[in-house]
């Protein structure tokens, strides 16, 4: 049967659309890479690329407490006071759970230049049973450069494997919302940190690209109440039950680092009042983490109550600039130990 003119035109149109759909995959990766430095979207991706380009000697791995609470320049300065010239950074993302830590450690250990020390941070909510890890986004962001071993690990770690696979098969699926968010942030001139803590246009220490969330603002009573309530309800601290099986991920991360010849430390970052939401549960958490440190023979620096100066906090879970600078010598002590 002879094809009509309209069929031929439709076939050409369809071919163009297929080409666009195929090209959209790599183009979305390129676009994301260009937009990342200008946006808070794709934080794990950004930090990982930044680290891979210039690996450091000491890496703090953890969540937003580590991201905000670790001023690399201040820790390096404190180390210099001790006669050490180590470079320091943090690979940390808000809400990270232990699976993300393991994934980050894997990536760091598979670079040609290894760090001298990895400091794994613990937060109580990572081990609260009512909360389930949802690491897909971060696991996906850590994918490049492609590494089959990493992809296998991420697939094993992710409880939402289908979502992770979709992100790998069609990168535009995962890139599109990141690009849209970056576009919206640029269009509305939002500072990139807006989505992490809600407000901060204050300058911070470190390279401009890494000025994520350190703020000078003190903790308001409303913020204190709201964040503590969120930890009680959303993070399940009110009904804390220790998720012991998650310790396996921490064990695996330690073994991974040691196999690569890298030393490991554990640290618990300061909090204000979170430990008093459910004192019994928190004590149980501390006991279990201490036991793990003893079992693995990893020194644990429990700093959760080291700073109870209210003026050093932005909210009960995060330090402000003053608190971050006050913490730096303690972190240097951990790094130097």
């Amino acid at each position, binding site marked *: 049967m002879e094809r009509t003119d*309209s*069929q031929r*035109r*439709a*076939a*050409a*149109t*369809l*071919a*163009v*659309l297929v080409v*666009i759909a195929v090209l959209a995959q790599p183009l979305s990766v390129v676009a994301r890479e260009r937009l990342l430095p200008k946006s808070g979207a794709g934080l794990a991706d950004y930090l990982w690329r930044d680290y891979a380009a210039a690996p450091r000697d000491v890496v703090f791995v953890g969540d937003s407490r580590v991201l905000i609470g670790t001023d690399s320049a201040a820790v390096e300065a404190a180390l210099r006071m001790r006669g050490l010239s180590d470079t320091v950074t943090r690979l940390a993302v808000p809400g990270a759970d232990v699976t993300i830590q393991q994934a980050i450690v894997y990536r760091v250990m598979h670079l040609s230049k290894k760090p001298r020390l990895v400091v794994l941070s613990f937060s109580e909510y990572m081990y609260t049973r009512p909360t389930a890890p949802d690491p897909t986004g971060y696991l996906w962001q850590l994918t490049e450069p492609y590494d089959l071993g990493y992809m296998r690990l991420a697939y094993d770690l992710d409880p939402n494997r*289908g*979502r992770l696979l*979709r*992100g790998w*098969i*069609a990168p535009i*699926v*995962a890139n*599109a*919302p990141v*690009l*849209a968010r970056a*576009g*919206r942030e640029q269009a509305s001139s939002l500072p990139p940190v807006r989505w992490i803590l809600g407000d901060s246009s204050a300058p911070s220490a470190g390279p401009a690209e890494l000025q994520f969330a350190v703020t000078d603002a003190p903790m308001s009573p409303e913020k204190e109440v709201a964040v503590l309530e969120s930890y009680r309800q959303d993070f399940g601290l009110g009904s804390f039950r220790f998720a012991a099986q998650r310790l396996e991920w921490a064990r695996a991360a330690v073994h991974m680092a040691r196999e690569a010849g890298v030393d490991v430390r554990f640290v618990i970052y300061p909090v204000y009042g979170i430990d008093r939401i459910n004192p019994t549960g928190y004590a149980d958490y501390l006991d279990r983490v201490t036991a793990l440190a003893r079992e693995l023979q990893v020194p644990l620096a429990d700093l959760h109550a080291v700073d109870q100066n209210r003026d050093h906090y932005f909210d009960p879970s995060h330090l402000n600039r003053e608190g971050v600078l006050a913490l730096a010598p303690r972190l240097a002590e951990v790094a130097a130990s």
Partner: protein
Amino acid sequence: MLFNSDAYLIFLPTVVVLTWALPARFRPLFLLVASYFFYAYWNASFLLLIIGLTAVNYVIGLLQGASLPRRRSWLLLALAADLGALAIFKYLGLMEQSAVRLASILGLPADLPALRLVLPLGLSFFTFEFIHYQVDLYRGDKPVRDPVRFALFPAFFPTQIAGPIKRYQDFDRQVASPPRFSAVLAVDGLQLIGRGLFKKAIADTLAPTVAVVFAAPAGAHLIDAWVALIAFGLQIYLDFSGYTDIGRGSAQLLGYTVPENFRSPYLATSARDFWRRWHMSLSSWLRDYLYIPLGGSRHGATRTQLNLMVTMALGGLWHGAAWHFVVWGAGHGVALAVNREWQERATRGLGRIAIPALAAWAAIQLTVLLLWSLFRVASLEQGLTLWTRLIAGGPGNAFVHRADLAWVGLVLVGLFGAQLLLPRLRWNIGRAEHVLRPAYITALVLAAVYLATNATQRFIYFQF
């Protein structure tokens, strides 16, 4: 699986490619498996319900075809099975609540266990398709003998969850003679999908403006109430027609055409006109399987108007197991009855008053808008509160920000602009089609991605 989810973005191309790669005789079976996977992705256990109802209707359909004298009994049995499933999953809770309320009004003790059944997705839609099938067999049509072809009729994933409500004669004809790939149909389908995604993204941007007022209408002032109501009118149209566009587009990529469901309903100039443009597959179903069996217009003016109101009230109840849906439907029934009476008088030359088209449009659209409030509220009491705010205003908290107001206005102008102007433009892109149409479709998708909110909303009609 949501049409606007990343899972569907992988699922659809995979199914399309595999469908066309397979020999034609295997395609219906493959589409059936894919459709069941689509359903099970939400809740695998409810797949048993759809398969069970399909089996029951298939067997009863064959029995209807084989046994002329007992046809009526078989029809009643099928209706009992289909409506029984709907009653259990959708209406038992309402019946229980109503019984408890009635008992408390009468001062009787009522201590019934609270029923919390999950409504299986799409149940209302495929139940209506089964009823249409059984009634048409009773009226003399031939049953579908091939079980795969029959099972694909309700399960077909592009229309499975929220319609359009198909007619089996049209659909089975397409399944029986497998379609050849048509680039024209596929490109039109992709354009429909792009348009649907764009509509859905805009609908989602309106959701917060609607939600903030409808969550606490007592605190709304006059402007809040009207803006939220107009925003909801836009949201439900863009959401549901967007869903339908994606469904129809998906079907076209597989070589099938399914009925249109919307034809610019907000341009309607009468109640009748509105229902010929809004959820067309439902209104034609209600006409054929409820209004006409009730007597239609065959028993005088009063009975006709009663039939209209009963049909629409039941149509309202189909939308949701709550009294505010019934009142919403009955309200449309009254509007249709008034419309009919007006036309009758005009036909008989009795007291005809010429109404300018613009005034007729304004009257019906205002009616539709006011009735939408009863569709969106959680209870009749809340609906009454909102109506008082719409009429008399209230203390006012100014829930709706100026930017939201401007956005609702922009969407409103954009929608009417598009519906009034686009059909008048004569597209003559000829040789440039392979450049301009992909650009248009890509722009729609990019705009949808850009507008997509973090909290993507479920399609409103999923709950029915």
